[in-house]
């Protein structure tokens, strides 16, 4: 079953007198359980595609069916609800609320949940944090956490509402190699458990952990290939730590 069906998505920006065609007709299907890397040089329309997929921005034309629902005609409030229930965001800059504890950050999507279901926000947030290995850091604020830990809090926040897919925008962009691999371990685990993950990145090193890769150029998909030599992040992490043991030790502290 397709989680995402994009048909002829177009998006134009008018900056001054210039009209930029950020997306020129994107057709894309993403099935449940996929792990998709979106690659492309800057200016290729990656960010615009990501904003469209994330229901942060309306496409100019085309149809976007998310989890069986047509979204291109949604109102801002409906968009907000879609973001709340269907999409888990992970950003390059973590985007956690500062001076707010990890668990409160993770609770945030549940706070805006309007489904009316009775949910124990605290318990679910704690469970999500335990899943990303931060069970002992619930009350730490972002500035008391390392970059990798902050990104893991962000991933916990992205999962807590059990969304249709996780949308990660350069999730390893601000992290060093070891932390990057750690994050990819987490994403692979999530994917193994059936989560659909879409990751925008420009690093081929990171893309090799995904299952499928599309490349954008000038607002169009120029290649769409399965990743044949997929790497296992857990194995890479072990071998990287063996090779750089002392360095890793230093970074940990």
């Amino acid at each position, binding site marked *: 079953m397709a989680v995402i069906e994009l048909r002829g998505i177009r998006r134009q920006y008018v900056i001054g007198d210039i009209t930029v065609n950020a997306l020129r007709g994107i057709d894309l299907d993403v099935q449940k359980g996929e792990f998709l890397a979106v690659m492309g040089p800057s200016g290729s329309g990656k960010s615009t595609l990501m*904003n469209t997929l994330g229901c942060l921005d309306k496409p100019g034309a085309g149809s976007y069916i998310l989890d069986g629902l047509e979204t291109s005609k949604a109102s801002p409030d409906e968009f*907000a609800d879609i*973001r709340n229930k269907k999409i888990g*965001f992970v950003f390059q800059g973590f*985007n*956690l609320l500062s*001076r707010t504890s990890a668990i409160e950050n993770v609770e945030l999507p549940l706070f*805006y949940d309007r489904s009316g279901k009775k949910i124990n926000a605290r318990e679910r947030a704690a469970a999500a944090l335990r899943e990303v290995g931060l069970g002992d850091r619930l009350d730490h604020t972002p500035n008391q956490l390392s970059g990798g830990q902050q990104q893991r809090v962000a991933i916990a*926040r992205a999962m807590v509402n059990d969304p249709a897919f996780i949308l990660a925008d350069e999730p390893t962009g601000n992290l060093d190699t070891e932390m990057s691999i750690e994050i990819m371990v987490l994403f692979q685990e999530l994917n193994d458990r059936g989560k659909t993950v879409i990751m925008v990145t420009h690093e081929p090193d990171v893309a090799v952990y995904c299952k499928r890769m599309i490349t954008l150029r000038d607002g169009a998909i120029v290649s769409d290939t399965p990743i044949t030599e997929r790497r296992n992040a857990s194995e890479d992490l072990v071998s990287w730590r063996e090779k750089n043991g002392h360095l890793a030790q230093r970074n940990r502290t």
Partner: protein
Amino acid sequence: MRSILRNKMRSFLTSLGIIIGVCSVIVMVAVGQGSQEQIKKQIASMGTNLLMVMPPRGPREGNRLSMTDVEKLRAESSYLSAITGEVRLSGTYVVGGSNYWSTSVYGIEPDYLTIKSWAIKEGDFFTEKDIQARNKVAVLGTTVAAKLFPDEDPVGKSIRILTTPFTVIGVLKSKGSNAMGSDQDDVVMVPLETAVNRLTKNRKIESIEMSVVNEDLMDEAQTEVTAILRESHKLSDKADADFSVMNQSQILETASKTSQTLTTLLAAIAGVSLLVGGIGIMNIMLVSVTERTREIGIRMAVGARRRDILLQFLSESMILSLLGGIAGILIALSASYILRRFMNTPTVVSPAVIAFSAGFAAVVGIFFGWYPARKAASLYPIDALRYE
């Protein structure tokens, strides 16, 4: 809510505007109403059978009240138990012994004592004879007596009012200060005729005060006094009166109207400070919205609707102004208690004023919080997320 606690100092300073505003509104109104109460009490304590004749207010024409009017009233009226003409010379220099003092000199007749319920402490008050003979005798209030003759008995001593020498024949019993806080014992009383002829230039009297024999006859007495004076002033039936006769409740009304105007004015000034406090809140909320643009973006990304953001900021500004309002009320209550208890200023804090200023504070919070909250809610999630 948490952001208020996170910025304790800023939140406090923001609320301070509201605190001061609410506090000053309540205290001002409390002081105003307090003095109004006191005026009412004081006038009520003078007896309810008082009538007063005064020149009309306003610059229309000069005062035409004279000794003749007093004599006519005394002779012709059947409802009056006591009557006195009155002149007042305030800020008059009085020299006695080796001291001098600036005080109010009242030219009055003996009935004044009964009408205004004064009593003599030492010596005597002057009599009708002193009035007729224009004797230069004076009765001192306790304050004046203490200033001029701190160590000796003033009775029998000689004093000088302006340039005229007077003999002190008595000292009044102390009455303390009145509703407006001025010292009623800071007074020298001299016979009306003497004052009119020796101390004033225009030989006019300033007011006539009367006691009516019975409270039930107030209306009749007022009508009669008016008729007698119209005749005395030779006014035709159509002409406006060049004097006004007021009874107890009318005097009360005039006095409380004056103090009401004052109260309103004070409250209005205080209200302006409340408004300024509100603008302070708006200012801080605007800064806060800019500062927290990214936070707004994050909240929107994880599913906050516009209304959620709007309510978040609106409730923040409301909480700020409500907390300020509550603090202001508490401070105002203690301030008016201190004023009443230790500074002898009468204050009345009415629940209506408290409710009004608390409500006004909340309205200020909503009104001035609305614009910043709208601004926050109308951000686009992508722009807010990208904001540095």
